[in-house]
C-alpha cells in the first residue's frame, strides 16, 4: 500500500529581516511517520518551524509546501492551526490574567468550528481537560492559573503536550521540546507525545541532541545545515551524529 503524503516541501527558500535562512529545503513526510531534524545552532531549525506555522516576519521567497494536498503557504497562521498543524514551542509565552482553561476552550472551539464540529459546552470541556491533564501530571489548580505565568520549564512543556493531546493535530512540530527539561519531565512529555501518535498523523522532531530520540523514536533522521538537508538516514544516523558532531556538515566560512 502506498503511503499518503501529509506534508510536501519543495525547494523552500525563506528569509527573516532580509537574511536568507532557508535555502532550497526539500522534505516529504507521510502519514504515520516521525521525522527528526537535527543540526547545529544557527542552521535555521526554529526558522523552519516558524515558516511552516506562519509566523509574522518570516517571508517565503520561493518554493512550495503542500499540507494534506492544500497550499499551506496561502493559509493564515490560524487556518494552518485549525487544519491540524501544531507547534510545540521552545519558549511558550506567558499571557497574564488568562487562565489555562479559558485559553484552551477558545482554542479547542476555534478548531472544532473549523472542522464543523459542535462547540464543547463548559462542563464537558472541563471534564475532558482535567482527564487529559491528569495523565500529564497537570493538577486542576494549574489549569486555573494564567497561562505559562510563573510556570517552570517542565510545566510549560507539559502544558504544550496537553494542548497537543486535546487538539489532536494531524501534523506536529516539536521545536527543541527537550530544552529546559530534566529527565523525568522529558519522559512525561515524550510519553504524552507518543500516546498521540498514530498511523494517520505525523511529527517533525527538531532537536540538537540524540537524548530526546531515545524516547520519541524517529523513522527518519535528517541533518540540517546551512538552510537545507545535507544528509538523511534511519534512526542510527542520530547515534552517529552524537559521536562525530556536526562539524563535517558545516561549511567553512
Amino acid at each position: 500500500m502506498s503511503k499518503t503524503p501529509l506534508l510536501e516541501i519543495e525547494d523552500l527558500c525563506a528569509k527573516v529581516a532580509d537574511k536568507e535562512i532557508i535555502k532550497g529545503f526539500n522534505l516529504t513526510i507521510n502519514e504515520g511517520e516521525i521525522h527528526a531534524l537535527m543540526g547545529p545552532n544557527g542552521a535555521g531549525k526554529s526558522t523552519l518551524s516558524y515558516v511552516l506555522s506562519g509566523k509574522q516576519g518570516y517571508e517565503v521567497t520561493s518554493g512550495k509546501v503542500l499540507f494534506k494536498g492544500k497550499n499551506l503557504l496561502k493559509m493564515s497562521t490560524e487556518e494552518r492551526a485549525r487544519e491540524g498543524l501544531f507547534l510545540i514551542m521552545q519558549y511558550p509565552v506567558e499571557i497574564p490574567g488568562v487562565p489555562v482553561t479559558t485559553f484552551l476552550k477558545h482554542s479547542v472551539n476555534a478548531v472544532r468550528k473549523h472542522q464543523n464540529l459542535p462547540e464543547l459546552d463548559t462542563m464537558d470541556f472541563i471534564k475532558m481537560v482535567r482527564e487529559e491533564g491528569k495523565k500529564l501530571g497537570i493538577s486542576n489548580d494549574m489549569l486555573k492559573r494564567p497561562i505559562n505565568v510563573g510556570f517552570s520549564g517542565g510545566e510549560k512543556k507539559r502544558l504544550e503536550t496537553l494542548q497537543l493531546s486535546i487538539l489532536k493535530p494531524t501534523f506536529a512540530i516539536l521545536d527543541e521540546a527537550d530544552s529546559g527539561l530534566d529527565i523525568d519531565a522529558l519522559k512525561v512529555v515524550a510519553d504524552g507525545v507518543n500516546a498521540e501518535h498514530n498511523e494517520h498523523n505525523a511529527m517533525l522532531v527538531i532537536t540538537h541532541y540524540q537524548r530526546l530520540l531515545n524516547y520519541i523514536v524517529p523513522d527518519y533522521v535528517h541533518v540540517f545545515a546551512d538552510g537545507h538537508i545535507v544528509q538523511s538516514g534511519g534512526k542510527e544516523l542520530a547515534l552517529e551524529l552524537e559521536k562525530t558532531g556536526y562539524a563535517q556538515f558545516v561549511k567553512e566560512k
Partner: protein
Amino acid sequence: MPDIQKTPNIIDESGDKYKYGFVTEIASDTVAKGLNEDIIKQISQKKQEPDWLLNWRLQAFRFWQKMEEPTWAKLQYDKIDYQDLYYYSAPKQKAAPKNLDEVDPELLSTYEKLGIPLKEQEALAGIVAVDAVFDSVSVATTYRAKLAEQGIIFCSISEAIKQYPDLVKKYLGSVVPYTDNFFACLNSAVFTDGSFVYIPKGIKCPMELSTYFRINARNTGQFERTLIIADEESYVSYLEGCTAPQRDENQLHAAIVEIVILKNAEVKYSTVQNWYPGDKEGKGGVYNFVTKRAACRGENSKVSWTQVETGSAVTWKYPSCILQGDNSVGEFYSVALTNNYQQADTGTKMIHIGKNTSSKIISKGISAGYSNQTYRGLVKVSPQAQNARNYSQCDSLLIGNKCGSHTVPYIENRNRTARIEHEATTSKISEEQLFYCLQRGIDEETAVSLIVNGFCKEVMQHLPLEFAIEAAKLINISLEGSVG
C-alpha cells in the same frame, strides 16, 4: 458648535459599532441658550427650588465667572463656548408621573432599547433599582416603595431637595464645595438632576442601586449631581451607566458625585462609562469632566471606586477618597480604554488624614489607535495621619505604535510613619503572545480581547457580576478595529 438644526443630524449608523447612538424623538422643554443669572433663575424656578438653593447656585456662578478653565491635564480639545449651550432640557410631560404607567412610552422604549429595565416586574427578581436620568431630569426611579420599607431613600435629587431639605442642605457641597474646581463650580451653578441616596443607620441595602444617565438633546450640556449618604453601620453598592447619541458635534458633560460615609459604613461605587466616543476620525463625542469624591468621615468607614471607562472623546476624571476617620479605607480600581482619537486623563486622589488609614490604587490603561492616555494620581499623607498605608499599581498596555500612555503619580508625604508603594509598568501586546494564540487556532481579534481582558482582570473582578460581563463585552466592542 453649530446652531441647532431642524432635523437631528445622526451619523450613518450602518456598520458603526456604537449601538447606543440613536436619538429619541421627543418634545422637550428647554430654557434659552447661554449662561447668565437669569438662566439660572429660570432653571431654579422650573424646578420649584427653595431660595437657599437658588442663592447657592448664584454664588457658585459668580465664583465661576472669576475662574479659569484648567489646562494642566494632558488633553487637547477645541475651546468650549459656554454661551453656545443649552443648560436645561427636559422631555415634556403633562405632570410629574406618579408611577411608570404615566411615563411617556417613548421614554420607556428608549430605556428598553438601552437594556435598562424600568418595569419592576420585568427586572430579574429585584436585582437592581434604577434611577433613569434623561438629559436634565430624572424620568423614573424604580423599587422606591420596597426600599422605603427599610427607610432607604432612593430618588432624584430634585425630589430630595423638596422632600428631605435638611439632609440635602447638610451634605450638598460638603464633599465637593463649589469653589473646588472650574467644572464642579459650573455644575453647582446649573446642575439639573441626578440621584439621591440615603441609607439609614445599620441597614445593608438589599439590592444594587443604579443611575442610568442618557444625554439625548442636541447642544445640551448634562450637569447631574449625585449625593449618597451612608449612615453608621450601613452598606450600599451603587452602579452608574452612561450613553449618548452619536452626533457630529461634541457634547459637554460635567457631573459631580459626592459620597458621605459615616462610622463603620461602606459604599461601593461602580461606573461603566460609555458616552459616545466620537467617530474613527475623532469627530464628535462627549467631553466628560467629572468630579467624584467620597469622604470617609467615620472610623472604619470604607469606600471603593471601580470604573470602566471606554467612552467619551475627552475624559477628565479623578474619583477621590478623603480618609478622615481613623482606620478608614479607600480603594480605586480602574480600567480605561481609549481607541481612535480618544483622550483620557484619569486617576485618583487618596488623602490620608485619620490614623491607620489605608488606600489602594489599581489602574489599568489600554491605549489603541491614535489615542492618548494619562494616569494622574495623588497620594497625600497629612502630618496627623499616623501609620498611613498606600499601595499603587499603574499598568499600561499599548496596542499598535501610534498611541500614547503616560503615568504621573504625585506623592506628598508629611508623616514619617507612612508606607507608600508605587509600581508602574508599560507593555505592548507582544508578537510572541499573538503568535501563540494564532498558532492555537484563535483569530487575532479574539486573541487581543483575551490578552486585554487578562490584563484588566484584577479590576474587573471588583465589579458586580452582571456588570462585569457587560463591561467585558464593552471592552471587546471598543477594541474593534484596533488590530491589523
